[in-house]
């Protein structure tokens, strides 16, 4: 069965290290040789660089799985088809909008579930969009005049803003808004996890609760920074700031190895959807037994390749693969094999444990069963 090859592990480590080095370089270049870099955020930067490397390492390792590799290669191959590049780009853009931005598939599972996920996702993504450029020194602000605030992106000046305007207030408090979004989303999620019988049975502490606890603690400590500076005259500010930093770093390190990895993994569904759309237009494979067209030939061929690569051999006596049959025919064929057991060479089963145990005077209450 499939085990991760040493070569794949090595390649993944190289990718991970290259990604960390690349991000470090971008930090240096983007902050104009660290001129606009805020040294107080050094801890965040180191954690981000390490976590980014770890995410790339995990992603590369994930792509080394036989099934993932086949989908990855085939997905890109289909996408790059020159004759259909425009159509494929449009299709991918549509999938990104429907699946990643609007998340219609979660909406179909339930409105509350969708709301929960949207609040957490947009809360986290917007926070990241605000935080990372600041941490990496890609964005900084300079005072202009008495109330003017000018934003600089990679050292290039952008628009100036009145520091007392509503827009500025919203911008300066963006992380407070996103923290409230995350808290609301986590509250809905935890309520479901404490009440839903199915969720209670399946959930695991590390996988399902820790990410919520991390997000809640990051949001709460983040809001406490605002409270401390606005209303408590900076009371305990440095302690809260350190705690917040420690929690953010923990979350960043949890990202590649926990539930939150789906944030990076999930966009692959764009490729899968493209694969399926194209597959529907291609010649379809008919079930070898009932003749129904159930998947495309390309898809079935890829699946058989993956199954063989994993070490399975589902070759049937007639040379076909078991995967050539539709799911229902597989079930019926098994039923027919079961039903024809008495026709085969095996003896009728007579030595039941009950009989043997009755002979050994073990009473199962079946003595008079015959």
């Amino acid at each position: 069965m499939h085990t991760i090859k040493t070569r794949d592990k090595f390649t993944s480590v190289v990718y991970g290290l290259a990604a960390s080095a690349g991000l470090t370089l971008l930090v240096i270049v983007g902050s104009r040789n660290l001129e606009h870099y805020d040294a107080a955020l050094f801890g965040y930067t180191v954690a981000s660089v390490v976590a980014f490397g770890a995410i790339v390492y995990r992603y590369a390792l994930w792509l080394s799985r036989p099934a993932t590799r086949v989908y990855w290669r085939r997905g890109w191959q289909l996408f790059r088809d020159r004759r259909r590049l425009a159509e494929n780009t449009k299709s991918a853009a549509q999938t990104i909008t429907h699946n990643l931005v609007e998340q219609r598939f979660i909406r179909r599972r339930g409105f509350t579930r969708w709301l929960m996920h949207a609040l957490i996702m947009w809360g986290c993504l917007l926070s990241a969009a605000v935080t990372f450029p600041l941490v990496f020194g890609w964005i900084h602000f300079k005072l202009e005049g008495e109330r003017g605030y000018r934003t600089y992106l990679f050292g290039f000046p952008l628009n100036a803003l009145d520091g007392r305007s509503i827009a500025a207030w919203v911008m300066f408090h963006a992380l407070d808004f996103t923290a409230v979004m995350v808290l609301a989303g986590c509250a809905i999620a935890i309520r479901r996890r404490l009440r839903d019988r199915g969720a209670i049975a399946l959930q695991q502490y590390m996988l399902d609760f820790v990410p919520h606890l991390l997000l809640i603690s990051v949001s709460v400590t983040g809001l406490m920074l605002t409270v401390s500076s606005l209303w408590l005259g900076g009371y305990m500010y440095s302690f809260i700031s350190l705690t917040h930093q420690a929690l953010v770093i923990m979350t960043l390190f949890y990202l590649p190895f926990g539930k939150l990895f789906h944030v990076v993994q999930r966009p692959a569904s764009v490729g899968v959807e493209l694969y399926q759309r194209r597959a529907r237009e291609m010649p379809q494979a008919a079930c070898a037994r009932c003749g129904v067209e159930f998947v495309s030939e390309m898809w079935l061929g890829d699946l058989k390749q993956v199954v063989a690569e994993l070490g399975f051999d589902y070759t049937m006596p007639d040379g076909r693969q078991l995967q050539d049959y539709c799911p229902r025919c597989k079930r019926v064929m098994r039923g027919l094999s079961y039903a024809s057991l008495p026709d085969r060479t095996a003896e009728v089963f007579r030595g039941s444990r009950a009989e043997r145990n009755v002979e050994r005077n073990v009473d199962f209450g079946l003595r008079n069963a015959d």
Partner: protein
Amino acid sequence: MEETMFIDPQRCIGCRSCVAACRECGTHKGYSMIYVDYLDRAETTATMPTVCMHCTEPTCALVCPADAIKMSEEGIVMSALKPRCLDCRNCVNACPFGVPKYNTEMHLQMKCDMCYDRSSEGLKPMCASVCPTGAIAFGKYEQIVPLRRTKPVNVHVFGNQHVETKVYLMLPTDADAVEVDGCGVFEGMLQRPAEERQTPTVESWIDTQVEHSDKSNEF
């Protein structure tokens, strides 16, 4: 969990109580994950109940590109983790038993997880709790087997592939495994010439009249 399931198709009367009860399970609320298929309606009323057999080396989990299908410590093969499942349907078509179901609209794969909300607490899965004939039983090996005159077997041979499972099939014969060789006929297999036996036959008309979702496993 020492308990497992024991499936005895000889006892199945096709009442589909299990199909209805399965929808009540907390882990796949509203959707039935069990199948009761007619074998050959032109020839027989025999039906085959199919639940997930919970393979010790699950093909569905290994062909999953997202690594979304996990096994519990007790050997239960769970439904795909929702955040990971990419709706690729590899598992649906790779499973030798034809078990996993999917829903494209919701990007969701689900399968029989032995009613994990119940079985993890020692309760019977919904199907086993309602089956009127004991075709689907749940319990410890030493509790169930002595009550039966059928042989518990947890090995299937699909062509060249041996598949060992957590769930047992109760056989009327002394065979050590169920050999699924693609023969598509109900009875009298041995009376037919060898080459005809190996040729999968087309279903009778009445068997082709099932819903397409039955063939593609879409729920």
